[in-house]
């Protein structure tokens, strides 16, 4: 609580010693131990230890995560009137577009990145990270905070608009842009397929129908997430070198953007009327940056953008920040605004 007040409201009278103490307290008391697996991966990567998970493991583990997140939402969603959510989805998509434009404005006019690179990075920050969302879900589970079942649907809806806007800013309505290919890449990409597939399976089969697969998808969720985070730590360590080349601004942006965007996310959560749990997750989504769907789509549609810029910021700064501090911070901010 105190920390949120400091970071959000203290403005003129920041007291660094207190702040450090608060940060330490948040990290030791509120941090989900699962995040330690990320730290292990990061450390192993930085030390160049002999630790490397084969790619199929990463794919398997992320498939499990996407399906369980989808199925969990689907089971609950089936109990709700579908039409009520349509309006919320429109607002959430509008938020995604707003965040992308805002990210572009900051990167281009404050950070002085060229139009193409700024648009590419903005596409990553307007889009979302499933890994961060999964950690947010685990965080809420641990704190026993309930959240709306439509959150996985928001996750799906937020992935795409930012990428399209990013490409539009970079290219204009250029005839040569392979739009079919881009849409295919995003709509038929693994994450959207598996999340929507999981939602559908959850909705159709329901809680009892999924009882036989529950041990794998739900009971093992945190174990699977731990392996996923170990791998993410290794991946993030690969991108740490980007700092030296791309400078301080990118680091500042990688930390500042999630804070600002999460605050906007909380605003939108209040607009939609989400519960505190839903608001924490929407803030987490808004504050997260894509590192799977956006890089792939941007790489094929805007090849002249430097992929190292986006990946360094999103993987080496924003993802660890959200894990280690961001999510706990968003929870405190939500408590403050909702309290």
């Amino acid at each position: 609580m105190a920390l949120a007040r400091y970071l959000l409201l203290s403005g003129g009278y920041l007291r660094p010693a207190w702040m450090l103490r608060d940060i330490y307290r948040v990290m030791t008391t509120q941090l989900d131990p699962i995040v330690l697996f990320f730290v292990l991966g990061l450390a192993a990567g930085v030390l160049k230890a002999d630790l490397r998970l084969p790619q199929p493991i990463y794919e398997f583990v992320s498939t499990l995560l996407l399906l369980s997140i989808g199925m969990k939402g689907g089971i609950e969603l089936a109990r709700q009137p579908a039409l009520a959510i349509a309006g919320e989805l429109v607002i959430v998509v509008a938020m995604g577009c707003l965040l992308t434009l805002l990210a572009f404005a900051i990167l281009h006019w404050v950070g002085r990145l060229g139009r193409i690179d700024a648009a590419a990075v903005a596409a990553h920050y307007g889009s979302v990270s499933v890994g961060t969302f999964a950690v947010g879900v685990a965080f809420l589970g641990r704190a026993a905070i309930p959240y709306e079942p439509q959150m996985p649907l928001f996750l799906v809806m937020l992935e795409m608009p930012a990428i399209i806007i990013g490409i539009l800013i970079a290219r204009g309505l250029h005839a040569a842009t392979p739009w079919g290919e881009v849409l295919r890449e995003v709509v038929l990409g693994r994450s959207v397929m598996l999340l929507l597939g999981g939602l559908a399976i959850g909705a159709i089969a329901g809680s009892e129908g999924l009882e036989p697969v529950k041990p794998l998808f739900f009971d093992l969720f945190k174990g699977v997430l731990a392996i996923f985070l170990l791998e993410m730590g290794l991946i993030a360590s690969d991108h740490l070198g980007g700092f030296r080349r791309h400078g301080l601004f990118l680091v500042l942006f990688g930390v500042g953007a999630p804070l600002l965007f999460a605050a906007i996310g909380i605003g939108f959560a209040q607009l939609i009327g989400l519960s505190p749990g839903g608001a924490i997750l929407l803030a987490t989504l808004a504050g997260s940056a894509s590192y799977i769907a956006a890089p792939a789509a941007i790489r094929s549609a805007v090849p002249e953008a430097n992929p190292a810029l986006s990946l360094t910021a999103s993987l080496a700064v924003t993802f660890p920040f959200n894990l280690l501090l961001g999510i706990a911070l968003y929870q405190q901010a939500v408590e403050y605004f909702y309290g």
Partner: protein
Amino acid sequence: MTDPTHPLRKLVTVITETSLERDLTRELEAHGVRGYTITDARGRGEHGSRSSSWGHSGNIRVEIICDAPLAESLMQRLRAKYCQHYAMVLFAHDVEVLRPDKF
């Protein structure tokens, strides 16, 4: 070089980003290539370390056996289309093949 016992063809090898796979294979087929082999690869080069540990961070290695004129035009085409913005290494060498009609 001594006379080869079998007919000669060109083996074109392309090492490039995993994310190009779909686009590249379409290009190959459009160019009249009859077959190719793709393997996952990793390594280090001008674009940094390509560790292949996840999704799009890896490389692929595409091997194509074809006759010399096709190999030449294919390499020119790939160079023009991809080399400016993508990590790509292109090379060719002579190989002896047992069934020349296949390539």
